[in-house]
């Protein structure tokens, strides 16, 4: 860890409370889901995030540990019609999901299909989630400043709890979300909606920077590395 970046928040417990521990890989196996939940419990992380097809199994492992399961609906492309996405939200809830992440149809939004796709899918997400926390995943790096702010407004109006900055899928295929873009969205969000960063975080001190910039939550598989940056984290070795 570089010496010039102090951990923020100050304790690893506080950092852990801001993390939702993700395993959204293509090659996740049953043993990975079990390990995810065991580590979440050990590291005091409140939520694990998994692919929809893994929600039921993850729930079996997470529930006895008091860990919540979140589903990443329509991950990673999101280019489905709203009604079809809601089938998946319902499935996830039936299987035990208590938090719903959903990838929006980014291409549809960029095409100007806001009333046809964007508003209906976001409104439906909140309705079908039935009071469970909702996190709308976008790819902020392909939106311009105005679009970033407009999307914030649409999500806030619909009652979404968090706007997720990126899918984190195959780093390098899309440009990473920049600090300038994050700052723009954080400003537009104000206190009306949380901001989540999704994906691998490397180096670990990038997590401190993100939270200092106003990101409220990290949905990441890089949990151990981030927490190990705290000198008193018991499992750093």
């Amino acid at each position, binding site marked *: 860890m570089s010496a010039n970046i102090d951990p923020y928040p100050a304790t690893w417990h506080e950092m852990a409370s801001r993390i939702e521990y993700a395993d959204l890989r293509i090659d996740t196996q049953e043993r990975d889901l079990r390990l995810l939940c065991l580590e979440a419990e050990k590291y005091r992380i409140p939520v694990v995030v998994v692919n929809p*097809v893994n929600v039921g199994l993850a729930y079996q492992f997470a529930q006895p540990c008091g860990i919540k399961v979140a589903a990443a609906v329509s991950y990673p492309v999101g280019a489905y019609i709203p009604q079809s996405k809601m089938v998946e939200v319902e499935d*996830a809830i039936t299987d035990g999901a208590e938090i719903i992440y959903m990838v929006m149809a980014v291409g549809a939004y*960029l*095409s100007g299909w806001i009333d046809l796709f964007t508003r209906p899918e976001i409104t439906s997400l909140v309705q079908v989630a039935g009071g469970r926390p909702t996190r709308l995943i976008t*790819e902020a790096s392909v939106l311009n400043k105005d679009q970033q702010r407009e999307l914030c407004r649409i999500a806030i109006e619909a009652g979404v709890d968090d706007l997720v900055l990126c899918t984190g899928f*195959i780093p390098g295929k899309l440009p990473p979300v920049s600090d300038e873009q994050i700052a723009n969205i954080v400003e537009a969000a104000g206190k009306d909606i949380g901001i989540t960063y999704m994906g691998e975080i490397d180096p670990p001190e990038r997590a401190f920077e993100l939270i200092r910039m106003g990101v409220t939550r990290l949905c990441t598989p890089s949990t151990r590395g981030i927490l190990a940056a705290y000198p008193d984290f018991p499992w750093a070795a």
Partner: protein
Amino acid sequence: MMMIDNDLRYSPEVMAFAGMFHYGILGIEKTEADVRSGIQRVLDSGYRLTAVDVELIYVPMTIDMIGGRATVHSPISYPLGNLTLKKKLRDLEDMMRIGVRDSAYCLNYRYILDHRWELVEKEVRAAVEVNQGVIAIEYNIQATLLNDYEIIQACQAIENGGANTVKLNTGYGWGTGPEEVALVRRVFGQRLDIHPSGNIRTLAQVDEFLKYNVRIIHSMAVFEITEEYIARLQQQRSQS
């Protein structure tokens, strides 16, 4: 630069070669304009490709625009195979209704990696039963992540489930190698159609696949590869 005459460019041999390919316009960031531009490229090429691959939300406009010049393909649970079975089957039904006639169905890879072959077979069978032969479906595994035993077992489950086509990679981050095609061909003979995908950029790669009687190939570089093919034909003709 070599001049190519249209007689060669649109000869039956070249048309048949280009006709093996899928051309994909897929991705979270793809807009209506991107898709229109990609389709226009297909139309302008003069070739009749096997299929144009688009996300489900762009299928209706693609069908309108392509006008029967290629089949419209849309993938199911692409690329991770991670959506619930109910959602996958719902998408399949939607596709049948709106006119998709070709699809890549990404199987649940956890079942494959956990060696739950009966569940892989069950998933294939469920899709086959809903589909009733309406859509040409290639069942997508991620062969690069599997060992030979797992590739064969997954293909066996596809066959046992009532299907006969395997796509060996999604093309997202991984590509099919000739050794994977050779393996499946050796074990299953001609019972399975094999569709390579991912990082196929050159004629030399295509030549390797053709040795194993592959008839369908997914490549974003279809037009560049076809140009290579034409150039080779031209050279062969000038030497004969």
